[in-house]
């Protein structure tokens, strides 16, 4: 006897309807975003290179018109990932709220870390920051940016970053967002493993630690740049 035939679209719908399905979507998109954040950070750290042109060369390489398709492909995938991640997060948020319409007079959150409890707030703030960040450095709509040789394909990243961070407000927002990102990932990376069913009593503790360490490293790496700029260690 064969069970009722489910077509692929029906299967996907059924999968997504289940909270575990939505969580899996969040986890997969989460991995992509974490991967991007990591790569992005490693790229940014080139600003410390003794070769002052290093980071601009890297930017020019990324913006190479020959591989514009690749760049836009990556941007599309990332954008899709962000949209899926946020959609699922918002849907679950409302679903979870509906699951407890009447709250407690007194409630104690025994073991849940602050990071875990604030995922729905750390996420959107990070997203808002990302928009600002893109407007600032990619679009150049926040403050004046400069290109190497007046060619938009070769932005003067070094100048843009350093001049931007010399503005204390921009730096503060950046650091604040990075702390929130750190919190989001502090819980998120481990949570992602759990959502995808990766768990073993022997490794779970290590996994939790590793996830925390990775989150903190990302924050330190990224925050180091505005700090270095403000401290005057990094000048144009």
């Amino acid at each position, binding site marked *: 006897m064969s069970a009722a*035939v489910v077509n692929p679209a029906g299967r996907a719908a*059924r999968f997504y309807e*289940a*909270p575990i399905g*939505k969580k899996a979507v969040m986890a997969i998109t989460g991995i992509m975003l974490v991967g991007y954040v990591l790569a992005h950070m490693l790229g940014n750290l080139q600003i410390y290179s003794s070769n002052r042109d290093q980071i601009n060369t890297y930017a020019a390489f990324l913006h190479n018109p020959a591989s514009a398709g690749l760049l836009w492909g990556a941007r599309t995938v990332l954008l899709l990932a962000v949209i899926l991640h946020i959609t699922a997060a918002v849907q679950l948020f409302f679903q979870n709220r509906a*699951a407890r319409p*009447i709250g*407690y007079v007194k409630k104690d*959150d025994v073991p849940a870390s602050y990071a875990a409890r604030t995922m729905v707030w750390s996420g959107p703030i990070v997203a808002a920051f990302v928009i600002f960040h893109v407007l600032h450095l990619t679009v150049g709509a926040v403050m004046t940016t400069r290109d190497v040789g007046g060619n938009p394909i070769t932005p003067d990243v070094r100048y843009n970053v350093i001049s931007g961070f010399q503005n204390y407000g921009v730096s503060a927002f950046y650091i604040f967002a990075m702390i929130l990102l750190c919190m989001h990932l502090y819980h998120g990376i481990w949570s992602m493993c759990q959502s*995808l069913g990766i768990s073993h009593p022997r490794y779970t503790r290590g996994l939790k630690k590793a996830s925390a360490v990775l989150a903190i490293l990302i924050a330190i790496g990224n925050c180091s740049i505005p700090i270095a700029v403000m401290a005057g260690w990094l000048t144009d």
Partner: protein
Amino acid sequence: MRITLHIWRQRNASDKGRMVRYELPNVSEHMSFLEMLDVLNEELITKGEDPVAFDHDCREGICGMCGCMVNGVAHGPLPETTLCQLHMRHFKDGDELYLEPWRAKAFPVVKDLVVDRTAFDRIIAAGGFISVATGSAPDGNAVLVPKDNAERSMDAAACIGCGACVAMCPNASASLFVSAKIAHLGLLPQGQPERERRVTAMVAQANQEIFGSCTNMGECEAVCPKGIKLENIALMNRHFLGANWAGREGVEAD
């Protein structure tokens, strides 16, 4: 010792309900928590007031009938302990305790501290079983079960269906409860034939009952009186993902 209680009083499902304050001046430290409530009720009856309704039966931590929030923690402050097994010696003279019923859309309040947990039964009915008609089983030793699997299965099977996990979860998720059954049966060879069908059906039912989703906070694990582990939720997720992507259910036959 003297204990002040603030108890959620609600006459029935349609009543709005409110917290009411009671003083118990002479609580013995040897009493169990429910015995303290018994004493309160005896006093209320003497005074002609409606006694506090609370669910309980075995009073030894196994039937899963008892439970309420004590100062915001399901089953009170002692780990791996049901409310009926909690004794007053764990409180101090002068303590103020807030008692509230489990709160979840899927667990509507019936009266005072009593809630309706039949949603759990419907989740089990959706797939929390092994379909074996009486009399059709082979000899008990025909299927060997590695000791480690039997132990892990038993760890999960210890769930008493009390609902504390739902009550404590910030999302009112039933994941710990559902995963305990998925793990209990899914870790045994006998449970394999229905594994995919079971996890799909139970997860769908839990969703339909309007339980929330798991965000891996671990609050359920912290209050579970039977020490059911978060690891079971990962196992459930694994089985669910496997069933939905690798599973052959619904694949068109050639």
